[in-house]
């Protein structure tokens, strides 16, 4: 569970102060699929960095699983990221000279998990993100964009995080492969009950989530359920 209480972030460069976030407060429950939407410069990236424990707020409290993580040191934040957060980036950020399996096991390497257990968990995560088994030993730079993003999703899931944080996950993909990726998120949400936070500037992408937080000039201007939610495939629990 995520809770933000009056979070503000101020960047200082010399004399100029930039207020990227102004008193943002909201709560995301376990199992929710939330889109954070806003144009560039709205503060959504700053919010993502704070939610993802890559950065700390200037003021306010950020509770992750009831623990205040807003005043931790860099290495403590690294620990939180390792245990609780899985990242999916716009540009995938895979290791190019490593196989799919090794890419997925990477977070477990830093967690100090044994080699055998790493492989098992990675395979499980790859199956979870519907990544075809034939490609598990391919180098990641031999894959198409959509495939790469599913490897990245598997990597985000491998440590069984509290929260999957996706930053413009479809930004580098065409509509069709983008839909495949969004479908993967919807399925993970419905079948496995994952908490997913999707950061995007496209209303079309945001409409795949259950709830949208709209942010503009550092203020939350709208927070509510998606009215006409787009569902790509119905992943009902009973069907599979």
């Amino acid at each position: 569970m995520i809770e933000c209480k009056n979070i503000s972030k101020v960047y200082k460069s010399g004399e100029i102060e930039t207020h990227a976030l102004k008193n943002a407060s909201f709560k995301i429950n376990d199992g929710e699929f939330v889109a954070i939407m806003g144009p560039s410069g709205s503060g959504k990236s700053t919010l993502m960095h704070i939610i993802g424990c890559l950065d700390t707020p200037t003021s306010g409290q950020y509770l992750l699983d009831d623990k205040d993580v807003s005043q931790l040191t860099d290495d403590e934040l690294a620990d939180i990221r390792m245990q609780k957060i899985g990242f999916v980036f716009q540009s995938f950020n895979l290791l190019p000279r490593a196989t799919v399996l090794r890419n997925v096991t990477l977070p477990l390497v830093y967690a100090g998990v044994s080699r055998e257990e790493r492989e098992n968990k990675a395979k499980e995560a790859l199956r979870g993100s519907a990544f075809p088994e034939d490609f598990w030993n391919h180098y990641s730079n031999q894959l198409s964009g959509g495939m790469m993003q599913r490897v990245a999703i598997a990597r985000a899931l491998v440590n069984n995080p509290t929260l999957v944080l996706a930053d413009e996950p479809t930004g580098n993909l065409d509509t069709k492969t983008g839909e495949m990726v969004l479908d993967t998120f919807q399925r993970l949400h419905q079948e496995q009950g994952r908490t997913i936070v999707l950061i995007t500037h496209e209303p079309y992408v945001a409409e795949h989530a259950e709830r949208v937080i709209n942010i503009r000039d550092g203020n939350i201007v709208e927070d509510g359920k998606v009215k006409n939610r787009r569902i790509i495939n119905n992943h009902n629990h009973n069907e599979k």
Partner: protein
Amino acid sequence: MKIQDIFQETYSSLSANKARSGLTILGIVIGIGSVIAMISIGQGASGQITSSIEGLGSNLLTVMPGFIQPGRGIVSSGRGSAQTLMNEDIEVLRQIAGTAYVSPELQRRFQIVASGNNTNSTVIGVEPDYAEVRNIALADGSFITEAQIRSMGRVVVLGPTVALDLFGEGNDPIGKTIRINRVNFKVIGVLQAKGSAGFFNPDDTVFVPLTTMQKILAGAEFLSTIAISVESKDLMPQVQEEATFALAEKHHVDPQSPDFSIISQADILGTLTQVTDTFTIFLAAVAGISLIVGGIGIMNMMLTTVTERTREIGLRKSIGAKKKDISMQFLTEAVMLTFLGGVMGVILGWILAVLVSQFAGIATQVSLQSVILAFGVSAAIGIIFGYYPARRAASLNPIEALRYE
């Protein structure tokens, strides 16, 4: 992060850039290799000098006419012209406790003729003790005896080079007659070849009885050198001091500035090892510069790698890598490069040392210390030149690193 995982990361990143890693390693290989080769040449030279000085005779004190300033080395002007050492001095020295043998010598160069062949060589007038003091051995015949000294015998013992020059190969010179300075001498012995000992080549020398030398050939009563063989190494300083006082008293001069000098073998050895040590340090320093250049190559490559992999570092941090994990990864890469370079450099240096002694005829000696030193230095270079890039990688801000284009 576990050690085997760090090594796997290191392996995959070094093998991803094989050409670059190889060239960077080459810098270290050349550096370490030249340090090893240069030190081996220096140590080989010093070993050779030590053994040839020791070959001149063990526990040797040399009394020479003229005063040598302490600390100015063994080279002195006008030494040969000083005529202060006399035959009476020999008895004074023989009475000092701890002396095993005393060998007075008078040395001149003369023209030597035999069976139409002509050579100019060093002629030394000696007593029988000479053979003991100077560690010489006969190949054939006998050395000069006490009786020949007393009777001023016109007999001569030839060094092997002189024997070869005068009589040619395969001819036995024993019993033949040679002419030194137009005086006939009978050859009674030939020495075994010993090889040059720096300034003095005993092979290119002939020996005659001291009395014959003084009375007939040189027409002089003085001595050019008195060599004293001391019973044991521990007694050398004591004998040296006593000899100085005894001779100074005999010569009626102040022991602080006598008209002679006593040089111990240790002094000569000390001076020469000082020279070879300086030489070795100089060579190693020149080679060390190339090692530093190699180290800068490592740093350059690591900085390029860190810049190139900024996004990767950002990603690693975002999935939970701590500063320590990142810096260890890059430091291990740098140390691995220098370690591989060190191993190959030691092999290269060793091969070079062997080649130098094979083809250039210079003695070389690869010691364990220089190998350990090379490894230590290469590991240190890896740490020193890898530290800054590793720290830079570790301190990257994950947000900025992920955005880096």
